[in-house]
């Protein structure tokens, strides 16, 4: 397979087709409009269906209906559009239907702006809509990973009969990177199993419904869903650690594109002889608490950097259970922390670590002055 240079949004559209998804329903919104634009052209070429819905509310009900008849289906949107889809998502989760959604996040709240942000973390992982339901949520940090995770999202959706959301910020949608796709024709249609509405001639009727007025019956549905979410949490956690094989005093926690920015800052610090580790959840729901705790245990202090006002921070605190001091810095509104600014935040956290407890003796004075000079020049 050769690599092609592609915009994240277009690559997401192609990844869905390669995963065997031939149905898209959605509504344009910046910064994800290249997904519907791409699929409007591509779906007819592969015998698929593209519908620009009249609104996001309609799109969410179209994917609800399509999944109900056993069709692999995708919708994509950006923050305010996802809010509009929230009601439909609750119904889809209650009915245990496999759909895949992509949220290319822009800045909020309200109509906000079109620039990159990570402000929908809590919405995606904790409170997408009403009632006790959960999405599986995947957070890529490169165009290639966005492709891989869209393919994985379809697998997980079908395996657990649950909606799966891929969240990326506007940068992932807009940037181009070399990317490799799985071969065409590899993605299979959805297995209709014993639940899809495929026409009941010659078999017992199936009903897809989320109205349970009997409290015992409704409680049972919730218990069944809970058991499923527990199983997903046990089996499907994914994460990455970076520069964690060497002893480090400070652990950085970040996800998505922010982790890429942190990696550059971490590389710069390593060149100056300072080792800092990075923990990046790939499944942000289920959150890899145990792996995060392990990485935290090796550090003296933790710094969480996000493009929001401290959302994943709550999960890091849950993982740490009060065992570590945690610093946080976030930007929002489309302001992106540069690698240099991230490095300064890391230095600030490093300075808060008492010298006696540092894992490694201080580096040579020559390097220290160099670093100090650099700081001064900024």
């Amino acid at each position, binding site marked *: 397979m050769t*690599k092609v240079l592609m915009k994240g949004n277009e690559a997401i559209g192609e990844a869905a087709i390669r995963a065997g998804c031939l149905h898209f329903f959605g509504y344009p919104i910046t910064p994800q409009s290249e997904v519907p634009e791409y699929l409007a052209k591509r779906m007819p070429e592969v015998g698929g269906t593209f519908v620009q819905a009249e609104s996001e509310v309609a799109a969410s009900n179209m994917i609800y209906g399509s999944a109900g008849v056993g069709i692999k289906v995708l919708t994509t949107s950006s923050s305010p559009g996802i809010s509009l889809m929230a009601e439909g998502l609750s119904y889809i989760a209650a009915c245990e239907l496999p759909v895949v959604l992509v949220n290319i996040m822009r800045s909020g709240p309200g109509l906000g702006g*079109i620039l990159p942000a990570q402000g929908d973390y809590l919405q995606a992982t904790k409170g997408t809509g009403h009632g006790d339901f959960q999405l599986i949520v995947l957070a890529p940090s490169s165009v290639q990973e966005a492709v891989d995770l869209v393919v994985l999202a379809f697998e997980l959706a079908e395996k657990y009969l649950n909606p799966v959301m891929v969240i990326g910020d*506007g940068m992932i949608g807009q940037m181009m990177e070399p990317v490799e796709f799985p071969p065409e024709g590899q993605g299979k249609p959805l297995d209709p199993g014993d639940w899809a509405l495929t026409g009941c001639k010659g078999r017992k009727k199936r009903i897809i419904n989320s109205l349970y007025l009997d409290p015992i019956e409704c409680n049972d549905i919730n218990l069944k869903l809970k058991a499923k979410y527990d199983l997903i949490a046990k089996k499907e956690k994914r994460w990455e650690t970076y520069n964690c094989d060497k002893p480090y005093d400070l652990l950085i926690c970040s996800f998505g594109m922010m982790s*890429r920015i942190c*990696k*550059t800052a971490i*590389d*710069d610090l390593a060149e100056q002889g300072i080792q800092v580790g990075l923990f990046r959840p790939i499944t942000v729901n289920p959150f890899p608490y145990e792996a995060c705790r392990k990485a935290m245990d090796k550090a003296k202090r933790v710094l969480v950097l996000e493009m929001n006002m401290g959302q994943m921070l709550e999960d890091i605190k849950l993982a740490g259970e009060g065992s570590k001091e945690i610093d946080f810095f976030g930007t929002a509104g489309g302001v992106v922390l540069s*690698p240099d600014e991230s490095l300064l935040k890391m230095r600030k956290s490093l300075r808060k670590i008492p010298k006696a407890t540092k894992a490694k003796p201080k580096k040579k004075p020559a390097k220290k002055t160099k670093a100090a000079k650099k700081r001064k020049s900024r």
Partner: protein
Amino acid sequence: MAGTEVLMAGFGGQGMLLSGKLLAYAAMKKGMEVSWLPSYGPEMRGGTANVTVCISPKQVGSPYISRPSALLVMNQPSLEKFGPRVKKGGLIVINTSLVPVKANRDDCTVVYVAAAEIAQEAGTARAANLVMLGAYVGWAGIVDPDTTIQMIEKEFARKAKFIPANVSAFKLGFEAGVKAKEGAKA
């Protein structure tokens, strides 16, 4: 870091995003890791537009860069905004057709290119973006010029009549870049 970060900036419609794309393609063909990150604010034609292309032998870290190692500017606002951010020892390529001022950076190499005039010579002033790209490629030698020309031909495949002028604009820019480099060495 062994990577190169090139920031290309100008007015929307001047084609710097396309120049960036061609550079990224050519670097990718050479087996390098690349990223192409555009500014995508609510700006339209006439507004400012810029793109950051990162080229690295290993996976690109942050595609979002505070201090690029090279800057290509088509207009004065872009020079004023991004000029001070270029890394010490970096390269600045200035389109003198639209930028009447100097770079004011003693610690960088500055190459002045009359991009619009050169492009006009090639056939169309609209190919000034490719003169700038050519000058950078000529100076930096980071990608193969022939590969870049192939990429230009591919990019304009559907508008084949524009290929000769664009290729020739790139070539003239390339020669200007090589000449500037030789001049600096001598």
